[in-house]
């Protein structure tokens, strides 16, 4: 309503022609309303536009020249494409500056968001398009000929690649493990939210695993604590009556161990989110349920759990998103073994690239994986969005 009043006021000012200023109404729906009185001369607008065009054309010219040089059409050029990058930066800066020069106050508003947009667009969209092209070539770093487009061969190869489908199947298991992590994390959050002493101490201690790099974790736990002869976990297992403990011998066991290590690092993450949710719960409702004679069990399932649903869903979705990138631990502990049982898609593609230098095929797999993820996440969000507070 406040916005409406202002707009009326501005219209009135406009109609009354009290000054030569052009009153620019702020864009509709702004939370922070500004009434600006820019008086931008045509020369200034022309200068600003010029700036962008000159920088843009300069960038394109340098890029085109360098492309010609790379394809041996012209005799001299730069050693690397780096000058093109600098030209791009100049253009981006000019674009940001021109916002203010051409559009005045309005431009200053755009300036908040423009750098981030330019950054992300240039670092994501361009490589993605380029990746799309690579993925339909037979490019192998080991071969001498460079890349040649090979149509749908890569797709055909993927279709017959049992290891890729196996990795995808593993991803399903890994994602399902999120729900177990969620249960544990919820339990821990409830514990931390209970009336306890030394809460801060426990909170810090529970947080620690999240700080550790997956690579260090793979050595600390996967390679030394689970070492068959001298590792403390192996000793413990022997004490408990498992004669020859082998944590990565059978496929199921190995997969479970990877899940456990990943869970160990990331449970704190969900725990903290859930704890924040628990602390934000309205106390009265829980008290009321107690007064009404609910047992703790009932008050959890009938009051706390339903109230926590939005936070839970958010935590699970974010955790699944992180889980889909799982690779570091697998690469460093099992390299996908035994027989691909622990492979995640990312670690599989990593080896496809590292060991076989198969850039074209690896990129295609990555692209397919991206498409699958986007579909999966979209469906997932559609499905859970009514439980979730909209991240608006």
């Amino acid at each position, binding site marked *: 309503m406040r916005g409406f009043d202002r707009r009326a006021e501005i219209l009135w000012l406009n109609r009354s022609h009290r000054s030569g200023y052009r009153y620019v109404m702020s864009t509709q729906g702004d939370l922070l309303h500004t009434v600006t009185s820019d008086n931008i001369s045509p020369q200034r607008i022309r200068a600003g536009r010029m700036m962008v065009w000159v920088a843009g054309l300069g960038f394109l010219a340098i890029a085109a020249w360098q492309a010609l040089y790379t394809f041996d059409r012209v005799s001299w050029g730069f050693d690397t494409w780096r000058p093109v990058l600098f030209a791009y930066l100049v253009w981006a800066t000019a674009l940001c500056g021109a916002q203010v020069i051409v559009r005045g106050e309005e431009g200053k508003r755009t300036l908040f968001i423009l750098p981030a947009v330019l950054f992300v667009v240039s670092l994501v969209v361009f490589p993605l398009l380029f990746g799309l092209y690579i993925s339909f070539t037979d490019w192998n770093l080991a071969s001498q000929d460079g890349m040649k487009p090979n149509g749908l061969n890569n797709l055909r190869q993927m279709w017959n690649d049992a290891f890729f489908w196996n990795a995808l199947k593993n991803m399903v298991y890994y994602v399902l493990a999120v729900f177990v992590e969620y249960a544990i994390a919820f339990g821990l959050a409830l514990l931390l939210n209970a009336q306890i002493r030394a809460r801060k101490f426990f909170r810090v201690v529970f947080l620690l695993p999240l700080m550790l790099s997956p690579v260090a974790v793979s050595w600390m736990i996967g390679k030394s604590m689970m070492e068959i002869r001298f590792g403390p976990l192996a000793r413990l297992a022997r004490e408990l009556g498992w004669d020859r403990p082998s944590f990565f011998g059978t496929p199921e066991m190995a997969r479970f161990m990877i899940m456990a290590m990943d869970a160990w690092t990331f449970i704190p993450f969900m725990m903290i989110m859930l704890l924040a949710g628990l602390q934000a719960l309205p106390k009265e409702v829980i008290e009321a349920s107690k007064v009404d004679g609910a047992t703790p069990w009932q008050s959890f399932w009938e009051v706390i759990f339903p109230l926590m649903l939005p936070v839970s869903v958010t935590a699970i979705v974010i955790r699944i998103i992180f889980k889909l990138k799982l690779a570091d631990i697998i690469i460093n502990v099992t390299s996908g073994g035994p027989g691909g049982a622990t492979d995640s898609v990312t670690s599989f593609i990593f080896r496809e690239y590292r060991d076989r230098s198969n850039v074209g095929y690896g990129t295609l797999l990555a692209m397919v994986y991206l498409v699958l993820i986007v579909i999966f996440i979209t469906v997932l969000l559609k499905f859970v969005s009514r439980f979730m*507070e909209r991240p608006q």
Partner: protein
Amino acid sequence: MTDTPQIFHDAGTDRTHRAKWWSSRIAIYGALTLWAIICIFPIYWTVTTSFKLAPDVMKGNMVPWWDYTPRWKGWQSLGLSPDVIFQTSTVREEFLKRFWNSLITSVTSSGLAVVLGSLAAYGLSRFSYRFGFMRNSDISFFFLSQMILPPVVLALPFLVLYKSLALLDTRVGLILLYTLMVLPIVIWIMRDQFAGIPVELEEAALVDGLGIWGAFFQIVLPIALPGMVAAFILSLVLTWNEYFFAALLTSTDAKTLPVMVASQTGSQGINWWSMAALSGAAILPLVVVAILLEKYIIKGMAAGAVK
């Protein structure tokens, strides 16, 4: 005293209540302690192992000064023990170089992400934009959707791109990628922070003659600072630990600490003490950060979860 008859007796229900209370206390603290051990033990194991010798490792000794004597062997192999700290050591130089690389890339990229992300988040929370068909919610979604982009998709195109830009194996290249990686998370946290700051503050500043950028820097930024610290630390954790891109895009100059740790794991065999020292040194900075700045980390992660 003892022979005076007790007048007030606990009712039977009271007694069971107390028993129940005690059992629930024991269960709660038992569970807390168990999980605390699960969290701490690997770290304890790593730190103690870095002071062990081969026989200690093989005998499975656990407690220093009780069943084994701590030695500097592991740290000596890194060139960081007291007796070799003043001698030249190639291993130490290598380690310090990696450490320095990790530090520079993680701090710079987190800082860059916080700057870019805060500006964008502030813009999105205060003004409405229109880029073609994209409105504010679409722009937000565009930023946040970067979170689902798996690193493999970008890795190979970036390898080629960086090769032609001569950014392969440079810190700048890693910094750009890391910034891109944590930017959505920063925006996610900061949007929440700015949404919690009342607009009236800025309106008052505007009335008093500040521009929107002036109001942002002088009024909003100081209030949002704790949130920015939270976002920075969270980014720091992610970038310090990043392995995937570093393994693919760096080889000699810009190699970071996780890559160094990973490259040593296979070759060391039972030389656990040196691996333990290396892992310990790699995780130590963040463990310290966690202990000192736990409040901010929790604040950062709680943002967005709870409205």
